[in-house]
């Protein structure tokens, strides 16, 4: 394949589904969903995209004494015929980067459908039900997925001066290649942007489990969500409505 793609192994896959997540999104949704899938399904990394053309490799980021280096990795979960892709969002050359993902997905994996995971920052509270605001690549897929309550009949145009998201670009490139794809957008309360939001990734994993027959019971996530809700409520009682900063850091510390 392309020299920018590096295969570690060559797992056997049969028209799998692919789930795509990005690190650094609100509520750590992409990382939490993909980590959960890989961990529960025993996924193994099998392929990487080389970072040189896509990231500013002018040093390395350190967060809490930990080195962070861009990662763009495919994982195979052959038992459930699933491919997971987790990546740092590229800084440059989006089209080339997305094309490489889809080269692997299409030419090597022969994927049948792709779901990207994305979080939207919302004004709603953590107690509100997390409704999907997904975008489908085609009316056919929308019809096929209609029983999952993924869409809200959204009409949207990027306002002047704005830019479409990486997920929208991905969906467009996948659509041009004829791959059935959907962006699974889910709202994250604004005060949980830099924390975890187990309620949100539970929603995404619940859909994926049902759609792909993964058999997750998700009780562990229910417990996490319950714990987090308790902490938020405790924080609100103790510090009042204006102490969101403390609450968020408390939630972040306890769940991370």
């Amino acid at each position, binding site marked *: 394949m392309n020299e920018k793609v590096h295969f570690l192994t060559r797992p056997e896959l049969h028209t799998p589904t692919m789930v795509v997540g990005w690190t650094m999104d609100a509520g750590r949704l992409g990382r939490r969903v993909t980590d959960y899938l890989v961990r529960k399904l025993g996924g193994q990394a099998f392929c990487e995209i080389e970072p040189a053309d896509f990231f*500013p490799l002018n040093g390395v980021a350190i967060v809490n004494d930990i080195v962070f280096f861009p990662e763009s990795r495919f994982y195979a979960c052959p038992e459930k015929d699933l491919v997971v892709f987790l990546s740092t969002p590229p*800084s*440059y050359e*989006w*089209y*080339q980067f997305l094309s490489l993902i889809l080269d692997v997905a299409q030419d090597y994996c022969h994927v049948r459908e792709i779901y990207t995971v994305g979080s939207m920052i919302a004004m709603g509270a953590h107690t509100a039900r997390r409704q999907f*605001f*997904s*975008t*489908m*690549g*085609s*009316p056919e897929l*929308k019809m096929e997925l209609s029983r999952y309550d993924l*869409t*809200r*009949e*959204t*009409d*949207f*145009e*990027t306002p002047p001066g*704005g*830019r*479409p*998201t990486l997920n*929208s*670009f991905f*969906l*467009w*490139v996948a*659509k041009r290649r004829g791959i059935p794809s959907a962006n699974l957008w889910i709202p994250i309360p604004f005060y949980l942007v830099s924390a975890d939001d187990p309620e949100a990734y539970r929603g995404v994993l619940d859909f994926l489990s049902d759609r792909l027959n993964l058999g997750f019971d998700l009780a562990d996530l229910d417990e996490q969500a319950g714990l987090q809700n308790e902490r938020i409520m405790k924080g609100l009682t103790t510090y009042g409505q204006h102490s969101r900063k403390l609450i968020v850091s408390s939630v972040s510390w306890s769940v991370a």
Partner: protein
Amino acid sequence: MGWAVGIILHSEPELEQPDMIVGWPGIGNIGVLTVDTLRQQIEAEELGEIEPWDYFYPNKVIIRGSVLHDLEFPTSKFYYKRLANRDLLLFIGEEQPSGHGRMYAEGGKAYEMANRVLDVAEKFGCRRIYTSGAAVALTHHSLRSRVWAVATEKRLLAEMKGYANTLLMSEVEGRGDVGNITGLNGLLIGVAKKRGFEGVCLMGEIPDYLSRVPFPYPKASQSVLEMLAAILGVEVDMSALSDMTAQMEGVINNVFRQFPSEVRDRIDQRRREAQPGMITEEDEKWIKEHIDDFFHREDGDKGQ
């Protein structure tokens, strides 16, 4: 119809050694406004485009009923027109392919884009390429913008100097004989030279204090377009640009009034020191309005 990698041509008209005129956005949007006004005036037809996704990030997503309807990118389009005395190709880029968050194109992407434009020029037998852009100058916004010219060979410079209101970059007061043209409006001429095309870059003057202001400067576009019209031997109605200039004048004056008075005085001095012999638009208007007064006064004086 497909033609070459990354270029889509809708038709392949027979053109006889057309000139190509190119514009990308830049300071004051002078180049792109010039070429787009010319395109409208001569009613040039769309010829094709460069596929955008390798060069640009999308600028708009359109979702209808939760289904992705379209993703839009900045366009890079070719146009053509058969004029009475020559054929023309036009190219208008909505954005410069800026790498790594920079304002102007540079490096591999810019070079690639320049070559795609020249691939089309070559295909249609083009010999000469014109680009246009901004010349940041120590001038005043009430003065007429002059046009600075640079070219790929001396013979062309001599030709350009023959047009009114034009000077060579080296003739600009205090500039010396070295300079630089930033972005694709400059790079294209360099690549054109490398590939054996004749190339000319025409730059309309914009006052230095307006060069970072994010609005167009149609006065300079008008000067460049007047020169292009003379070169091409076409009649171009300048009223749209004149109207735009008049509108912008109000905006610029508002900005100018907010400058500290010492700065304003210093800038106004430029107007007073405008080269002897140079008649500004304002002078011209004033003279037209008052010329009769002079004669009447002279008559009156004689009578006393």
